[in-house]
Each structure stands twice: as structure tokens, then as C-alpha cells.
């Protein structure tokens, strides 16, 4: 089971910001530096780390970090 903590580490790395704090409810609007460009890097980093692949549709449906964690777990199940 991948956790919020693991995902937070990826965000810290990709956003080059160690102060990133995420909750399941966090969205791009709440997190400094999370935008179109960094989003592609975050998705890519997650795909590499867990050897999974997101479809564009799946990325679209992610409304917050909780959705992201759940989608990763579903793919790994």
C-alpha cells in the first residue's frame, strides 16, 4: 500500500521544495509550484518509481492527492 508519505517525498523531490506538506485533500491550487509543467514531472516520476503508466484520462480524473494515492494503489493491486 503506497502512502501519502511516499507520495509527499516524490513531490518534495520534483518541486525542489522540502517544505511540501500534502493531505488527501490537497490540490494544485494549494501547493506552490504544482502546475502544468511540474505535474508532468511528478506523474513521470511516479510512473518510473512504481513501474506503472497513467492514461491522460486518469490524470484528468485526479481531483486531489487522495485520488492520486488511490489510483496508484489500484494499479499496483
Amino acid at each position, binding site marked *: 500500500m503506497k502512502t501519502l508519505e511516499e507520495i509527499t517525498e516524490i513531490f518534495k523531490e*520534483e518541486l525542489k521544495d522540502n517544505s511540501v506538506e500534502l493531505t488527501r485533500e490537497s490540490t*494544485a*491550487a494549494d501547493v506552490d509550484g*504544482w*502546475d*502544468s*509543467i*511540474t*505535474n*508532468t*514531472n511528478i506523474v*513521470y516520476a511516479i510512473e518510473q518509481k512504481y513501474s506503472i503508466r497513467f*492514461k*491522460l*484520462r486518469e*490524470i*484528468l480524473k485526479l481531483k486531489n492527492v487522495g485520488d492520486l494515492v488511490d489510483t496508484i494503489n489500484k494499479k499496483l493491486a
Partner: protein
Amino acid sequence: MDKDNILRSIRESMCKYSDKESFIIGGDSYSYQDLSNQVARISCVLNGNKQCVGIIENDDIYTYASILAVLFTGNTYVILNPHNPNSRNKKIVESTSIKTILTSINIDEYTGVFGDICISSINLKEPESDYEIPLFEADKDDNAYIIFTSGSTGEPKGVPITYGNLNSFYCAYKELGFNLDSTDRMLQMFDLAFDVSVVSTLYPLAIGASVYTVPLDAVKYTAVYELLEDEELTFAAIPPSILSILKPYFSEIDLPKLKYLILTAEASHVDIVKEFYPSIPNAEVVNLYGPSEATIYCTSYFATGRDIKNYNGMLSIGKAFSGIDFLILKEDDSVADVSEKGEFCISGSQVMHGYWKNIEKTQEVFIQKDGKKYYRTGDVCYIDSEGDIMYCGRKDHQVQINGFRVELSEIEHYAKQIHKNGASVVIPKENSLGNLVLHLFLENYSEGKEKIHEYLKEHLNPYMCPKEIHILDSFPLNNSGKIDRKILKASIK
């Protein structure tokens, strides 16, 4: 005559299509009647005309109605982006003597920003009552909007566009002959402080079509894709960088309803356009070029169904709009021959009169030639044998290394042959000895510096090969969504 005035056309749409959707914002739709009500209500609090009115950008109907209200009352709108530094917004407010700011978000956040400037801000969400849109028509030399761009001295540089400029643009744009009408669904994804937003908003309204907007904070590429596919948009103007981001997903994208894909705001690359073709089987790809100083766009290149003309991979910018006169001027300001490169200079009624309160800068960018006033775009172009304008890069991206003239776009072109998963940018910077050194920045590049270095050595003269290679996960972008070369340059130690 009515056909030559964009605001009159919009007014007609409001009457003719009152039940039809004008805007779809965040999933909520607003009819032309809803829009017209909002515009009328805001118009009546704008006393007088010829004044600069600030609008704090927000993705809602009030903000778009405010733009129309300012225009319908013959005032000048100036967009204040809440994400820009406060100091910059303050400079803009001071320089334009703004007394009224229209906002649908809490102004209290801004009281500190604008200091002791007395501003009457108008809360847009007041209850509605019966108002009518005033029947005022602006003088053609009055300013419709002022776009502020970054100036070389750090002071925001204001580009004032008059009602005359705007209507000249409208006439020329219509002549491109887009097959669009009130049934079309059109994208508006640009920051309102960037001028492509003007045409992306006003043109659909002028033909009674529907405008689909993208939220300010959204992860834009997903929001754009979602609208294009789910709402079956028929017309979209986007910067090519959106295509670069979507590239890994092209095989999932299917947009059979799209009639026109406009590429604008930065140079478009032929490879990525061709790769995107299968996703847009019924769309015509059009490259539209223009500096803000000449009102949004002033040249067009229809790319579909032909062998795409390009220079170093960058799409041709095609033919000038009707009403635009242009020259290619060489370094000594003499007129270049066919196929000879020089600075692209334009004249005509779309071109601004001059920068806002900046005579010095205005004098720098205009040149008199054959009794006409030409604006120097700073873009290097040449005309090919068929009269198409070929874009070759920025004049200020052209540098001299050891006395040789180097065009940075040429180096970038070769870098792109090896590095296809992200952007490549060459930045010249003086080293401590005062010599200009070329730095190659690669976005999301994983193949090793040696490989690209060897390839460049194979294809470029030694003095053109970048001495330093920097690899970044992603490139910084400026307000217009273009790669911010200044930040890249500042990052070089």
C-alpha cells in the same frame, strides 16, 4: 460599416442569440442574455469614458463581463493578475492613474498592494436589477486596452491598443475566412493579461459562438484536453508548448470535431505538428504570428494539406494580414532581397501609436521608411520565393561569437534532433573574462551530455557549439507561457 466594428457585432449577438450560451466557465453556462445583464450592470457604475479601469483577473463571468463593460463605455481596460508580484501591479496602477478597479474577489487582499492610491473598487457580485448597455461608441484613437509586458529596465512596458487598432485587426482576421458561426464552441485558455485572450474572447462573441474558458490555477494541459474532448470544441488557439506536454499521450487523444487548431505565442515546430495530425483528422492547423504592438496577430500560415514550410524546423508564419505592410530590413536598414534575412518590420492600422508614457522606447522601435512608420518587431525573417514569410528567431537571440554571427535557433534546431522529449534553449552569457559563452539548456533530457555534445560538434562550426550543457527537469515559463530565458540566464553561475 457595422461589420467592421467588433463591439457592434457583439452587441448584435447579444440581441440575436440571447438564449444561446455565451460562456461556459467551470462547467456553468451563461446565456448571451446573462452576459448582457452583467455587462449592463457593470457599465452603469463606470462613469465617463477615456479612463483606465483595472480588472483583477479571475475565471468567472464577472471578469469577462467587466472587460466588455469597459469597452462598451469607451474606457480602457488594464488587467491586474493576482498572481503577479504586488509591486508590479502597483506600478501598473500608478502609471495608468487607475481610479476604479473591478473585482469579483476580495479586494481587502489588495488594500496593502495599492498603498495610498485612492481606488474605488466595485464588488461585481451585487444584486441584479434592470439596466441597459449604454450605446456609447469610442473614438478610434482612444485606447481599448493596455497590455503590460516586461521591459528591459524592469519597469513594466505598456502597449496601448486603440479601438481603431482593434477593429482593423477584426476586419483582417475575418478575412482569413474561418468557417465558423454561432454553433461553434471555442477555447479561451490564455491569461487575460496576454493579448491572445482578447481574440479568444471577443471573436466568438462577435459571431454568436460559445467561449469555453480554462481556470487560472488549473493544470492547463489537462484542462485544455478535457474541454477539447468532452465539450467537442471546434476551435482552439493554444501555444505549441501545450502540444509538447501532451505529446506522450497523443495516441489517446481523438478530436474529430475540431475544425481549427491555432498555434500561436511561440514558434511552432513542424515535427510535433505532424505527430499530432492523427489526433485531429478534421482540423486545419494554422500558425498565427504577431507582436502585441501590432494587435494580437498580423500574419497567418495555413499548414494542413501541404508540405509544411519551415526554417530550422520552425513553421513559416505565412502571409501578412490584409492592411499590413511589411519590410525586411537588413542591419544597415536597407531593404532585404528575397531570401535575404533581416528584421521583420510592420506598418498599418493594427500597429500601436507608441508605448504607454515611454517616448524613448517608442522612438527606438519605430523607423520611417518611404513615408510610412514601421514597427521593428525584433524578429528575424526572410521572404521565400513564393512570398511566404519565414521566421528565423529573435534578433536578440542572434549573437556574435569570436566575430561570427550565431543564430541561437540554429543550435537549438540541432539539439532538438537528438533531444526530442523536451525543449532545448541556448543562452549566451558573458563569462568573468567578458567573453560570450553559449550555454545549452535541455529540459527533461536523460541521454547523457556526451551524446548531444558529439552530435552538435558534427553539425555545427566549433564556435557555435555550446561550451556548457545544463539539464533541468522542466523550464521556467513566463506569464505568456513562453520559456523564460531570463531566469535560465540568471541560473548560470
